[in-house]
């Protein structure tokens, strides 16, 4: 299947890097991938989103007007993107920040208080990874093994010491009921 993923939230929540990690891991899995960020003033505090496609066959359009996997880290993004999820698609929501579930009954949603869990772990920046954990568990968008390799490839070396904790965060997301 073709994974068409939209990730959206506030600038600074690690939305773009979460997408970047998916693309990198997808590539390491041997799939075709694309990563398309929203760019411009959004980068400096407004809303941020990116489109990621992971596919066995060459990616047709990297620009998504609809998706089957949606990761949401703020309420305006849920309002904006919920209607773009295809029937049977999945939505992962950071419920520490977003105070509602999806309004539709033809898509699956998972509410995880990712930012709160990350705070308890001592680093709010892990929230995006916790949400990705759930996505990977439910949809096998990328493999866990190559996700770890992607962390090493994407993060600058001075952050490599954080990777064991990032993997722990991923596992918390995967196991969250």
């Amino acid at each position, binding site marked *: 299947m073709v994974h068409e993923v939209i990730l959206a939230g506030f600038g600074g929540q690690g939305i773009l890097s979460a997408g970047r990690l998916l693309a990198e891991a997808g590539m390491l899995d041997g799939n075709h991938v694309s*990563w398309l960020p929203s760019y411009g003033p959004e980068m400096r505090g407004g809303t941020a989103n990116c489109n990621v496609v992971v596919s066995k066959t060459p990616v*047709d359009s990297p620009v998504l*007007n609809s998706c089957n996997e949606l990761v949401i880290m703020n309420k305006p993004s849920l309002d904006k993107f919920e209607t773009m999820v295809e029937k049977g698609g999945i939505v992962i929501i950071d419920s520490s920040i977003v105070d509602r579930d999806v309004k539709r009954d033809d898509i699956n949603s998972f509410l995880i208080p990712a930012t709160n869990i990350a705070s308890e772990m001592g680093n709010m920046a892990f929230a995006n990874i916790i949400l990705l954990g759930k996505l990977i568990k439910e949809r096998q968008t990328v493999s866990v093994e190559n996700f770890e390799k992607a962390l090493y490839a994407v993060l600058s070396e001075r952050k490599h010491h954080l990777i064991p904790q990032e993997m722990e965060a991923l596992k918390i997301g995967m196991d969250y009921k």
Partner: protein
Amino acid sequence: MGQKLLMKGNEAIAEAAIRAGCLHYFGYPITPQTEISHYMAKKLPKVGGVFLQAESEVAAINMVYGSGSTGTRVMTSSSSPGISLKQEGLSYIAGSQIPAVVVNIVRSGPGLGGIQPAQSDYFQSCKGGGHGDYRQIVLAPSSVQELYELTVEAFNLADRYRMVAMIMGDGNLGQMMEVVEFRNEEPIEHYDKQWATVGHENSREQNVVTSIHLNPAVLEKMNLDLQEKYRVIKEKECRYEIYNQDADIFIVAYGIVARIAKSVIEMAKDKGINVGLLRPITLWPFPDQAFDQVIDKAKAFLTVEMSSGQMLEDVKLALNGRKPVYFHGRMGGMVPARDDIMKEIRNIYNLHVKND
């Protein structure tokens, strides 16, 4: 093929240029192509090259003119409002027949417009944005891999024909990441640039790089020579892709829009509609002959652009009334949506295919 990397389009352009032997880059900051400058600023000094941030777009293109006059492989990059400022230099470079590569990562206009992707510089790029009867080769990649390959190719074309080869992308292509597979060795063509102004060392006649000829007879001759060169290019250098040759309806699109078109083709297939893609890779020269290859079977054409319909005029000229042409365009940084294009396809199908 060699190394595979997940790269931003803008970075792929810069890396491709360096691999093609471009060691001189002059530019001025503008969104959404700044990563090209950042990459060049970081990499060029390490390979013995020159990165210079100019005081203006106007100065940058004139630095390119000077550098190119000495026979170097040289590049500048910008986005729409910046490319407008460069038109003076582009015209001089055309008149003086200097090779140079210019990248335009198009954003929406007119005026300061926005920073979101557009294809509204088609007229400016293909029909001559500056003064005088001149052309530039315009290449329109539609993936990060192609940004790499066509940038390398642009340097060969610029040298081969002593003119500007432009890479015309858009904000999305520049910003997005895809996997690039690099060749172990680039197909670099080498030309003996005897015309270059590098100092005659008292061993040959003076070389002069100029575009001024106040004698109209001389200037007409110079123009005729240019036109002859353009005729040869039109004959030899048209590039295009035809996808699903036997289709009933063809979408004509380039760049990122061609990618969206490909997913529409899949959607249409599910609904039993046979749609193909005709993708010009060279916007100038425009690949007229590509239309002849599909015209017998095709019932109609749908041009899709991120503009008000600029390439549309060339599509109509190529078809010359032989088949109906429809248009779907978005402007201002909006990107055509698959569903909207599909709707147009359905209408065209009902009109021209269904009852045939």
